[in-house]
């Protein structure tokens, strides 16, 4: 049971973009280098994020990406759903199959549905801003350093 690299790398790259975008838009190559992720792969991820309005691209030789939303207004849940699709731990098919009276239905109601609910509540409660604050704390980037 694994998240795909799309969700994992995408969220990491977005945190990186947000942390560094105080210096203006960020070329993908720099995000890729800092996060040790293939630039070609990140291009696909950012294309998806751009289509969904999370980032916007600045074209040109000096181009790059900017966040298109307030970090406080976008949750980890929104980002992961864009990149991973729905976050259910079981296929849609399991849900419909379990509608008949069966052991599967008991398991679905008492286990899988609850896990889905908890995970969705969890990721919807964490904003990009919180991750960025944690990142700055972990990397010794104190708030006053911005004003230097």
């Amino acid at each position, binding site marked *: *049971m*694994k*998240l*795909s690299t799309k*969700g*994992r790398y995408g*969220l*990491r790259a977005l*945190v990186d973009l947000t942390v560094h975008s105080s210096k203006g838009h960020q070329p993908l190559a720099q995000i890729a280098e800092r996060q*040790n992720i293939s630039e070609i792969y990140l291009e696909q991820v950012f294309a998806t994020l751009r289509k969904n309005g999370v980032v916007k691209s600045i074209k040109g030789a000096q181009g790059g990406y900017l966040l298109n939303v307030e970090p406080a207004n976008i949750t*980890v849940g929104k980002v992961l759903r864009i990149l*991973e699709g729905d*976050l*259910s*731990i*079981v*296929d849609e098919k*399991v849900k419909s199959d379990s509608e008949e*009276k*069966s*052991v*599967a*239905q*008991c*398991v679905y*109601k*008492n*286990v*899988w549905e*609850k*896990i889905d609910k*908890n*995970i969705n509540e*969890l*990721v919807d409660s*964490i904003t990009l801003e919180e*991750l960025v604050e*944690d*990142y700055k704390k*972990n*990397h010794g980037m104190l708030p006053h350093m911005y004003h230097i």
Partner: protein
Amino acid sequence: MKISTKGRYALEAVVDLSYHAKDELESLNSIANRLKKSKNYLEQLFVLLRQNNIVVSIRGSQGGYRLAREASKITAGDVVRAVEGSLAPVACLENPDVKQCCSDYEKCVTRVVWKKMMDEISIVLDDVTIQDLSDCFDKMNKENNLEYYI
């Protein structure tokens, strides 16, 4: 991010076993028939369940399976972990040696998110016992029977 059929089928099979094997042994054939799953596939899962002390098997013509302990003492988490292995949504949470998989392990903020996700999965799985699930099925059957008599 999906749980595999291993985890799902194993959990359903153990609940079925618990419900039907009150005092006697239950054959894998019966379980497979009731759940409409492949017996061969269930057999593979039951090897893991046996190794992890969830079920015991008795050989012979009257042989079969039963739970290794009371249903109230086996959680859904015990069963799912026995067949799925780790419940980590990312590899770097799986073993202590993972620090090599990422140079930023200690400071990684997304790792904390994945860890919280894993905790949510464990909280639910470890809170539900096979007895709870078997009781749910029992109740469902009784409700069904009531409907017939109306």
